């Protein structure tokens, strides 16, 4: 099980996968908007998206869990 975490504080701009999707290593899971920049947050390992813990528009802090991926 892999926790995908926010690498910096920001707003969740777009969620680009859905629960149940198969994702590859380095595939974007969500895109944050922070410091006026698009910040893609990618999976570190491939697997299946088990849970998405944020909604678009949410504020997340650095280190917050965004999604859970099962190998």
């Amino acid at each position, binding site marked *: 099980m892999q926790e995908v975490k926010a690498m*910096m504080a920001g707003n969740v701009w777009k969620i680009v996968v859905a629960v149940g999707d198969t994702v590859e290593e380095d595939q974007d899971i969500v895109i944050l908007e922070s410091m006026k*920049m*698009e*910040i893609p947050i990618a999976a570190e390992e491939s697997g299946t998206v088990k849970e998405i813990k944020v909604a678009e528009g949410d504020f997340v*802090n650095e280190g917050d869990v965004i999604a859970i991926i099962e190998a």
Partner: protein
Amino acid sequence: MPLKKNEPQIIRVINEEGGFIMSYIEELQKRIAHIEKGGHEKYHQKNEEKGKLFVRKRLELLFDEGIDIEDAFFANCMDDSLPSDGVVTGIGKINGQDVCVMANDSTVKAGSWGKRTVEKILRIQETAMTLELPMLYLVDSAGARITDQIEMFPGRRGAGRIFHNQIKLSGRVPQICLLFGPSAAGGAYIPAFCDIVVMVDGNASMYLGSPRMAEKVIGEKVTLEEMGGARMHCSVSGVGDVLVKTEPDAIDYARKYLSYFPKNFREKPQPMEPKDVMKFEKSIEEIIPENQNAPFNMYDFINRIIDADTFCEIKKKFAPELITGLSRMNGKPVGIIANQPKMKGGVLFPDSADKAAKFIQLCDAFNIPLLFLMDVPGFMIGTKVERAGIIRHGAKMLAAMSEATVPKISVIVRKAYGAGLYAMAGPAFEPDCCLALPTAQIAVMGPEAAVNAVYANKIAELPEEDRAAFIKEKQDEYRDDIDIYRLASEMVIDAIIEPNKLREELIQRYRIYDAKNVVFTERKHGVYPV
């Protein structure tokens, strides 16, 4: 009459009747053979199981043709169990250049430091100081030999002096640490004072107190890997710089790294045969997105301006939002500091600022010209970074960048907002030139943030349906105001360069700026923001 007192156990020179059974030459050869073998066979085996090479094998791989001279080979030779007192010190060649080395032998009392071990390390450092040669530390040591502490710990020639010598050598000659095993307690400061620390994944570690000590003294239960492992240090603490899989990889890295450096601060690095740039399908223009807020991969940009296969990255896994590495352009070394928009938007954080500060000092100390590639939205804001002291960390980067007197070129690739412009060698910090690509945008902040900041109240007062049009109008006005040609007209930037001509422009400029010879200012030393 040789050797009646303190006679070593393994070598008997005289038989019971008092007659010689071995010639002097034989005795010497036998002693040499014994010492060269290092510690007991079982420790060799243990090391082999962990993928660790014997110290003499490491040195064989490190040098062009083995160690040329070795001193105090016989240190502690009256004790058979402590060959060379657990450390090899001497001089050999790397890329044809003499370098000094100290290398722990972990088959001898786990590479621990006795009185003579410390004295040997001090002497080779002092040789490096006298000859002004690079100093390499091949570390694999359990730390102080407690039984010898009075002789090796507190005094004038005690272990503290090793660090004192390192600090004195810093910036005079390159100092490299290859970490093959533990570097424990006080010993952990050897890597800390080196220019660069290469760590072997799984075997190398650094810590002040072992996990066992942490449990006993503060009650924390933690593994060695979590607390002081190579991966942790190279990605989280930043005490390590380069993570490698095997010992030969570490040695290869050190040999490559050293090729970018002169032997000491008095000289310039040697050029190599110029190489062409790597060939790619997409040109520079095609890899830079028009939307300033969209990420792209700065490595793709770097590879399009440097000589092929010359990028020697430092701290790849630590603070990846800023890339630092050595490279060559037209065969000549250039140190690159580049924002990476693909990671954290290329925003500067406390760790990225520290990473930049050390790298800039490294290049400046050894006359390696600097190149700043800017695509930076600024320094991070918010509670977390303010509490982490982002202002003082950022100040370190500004101070190091500002003080650097080597040829210094900044290139605005895309955005250069706020203090990001300053930290990345903006015009006020005496770069030899500040170049811009046509995609460049310089401002206190980006158009979105600026319009928000200036017109927040006005926007709120407007009817909902009029807001978008108003915001767009103001943003366009703002963009016109910070237009790159306007900045060129005001001579804020020195030139606007076509992206595909950037490499040639840089090569020309570095060739010309090579004549630069300036002193930053006169004083004892600055009071650094640490």
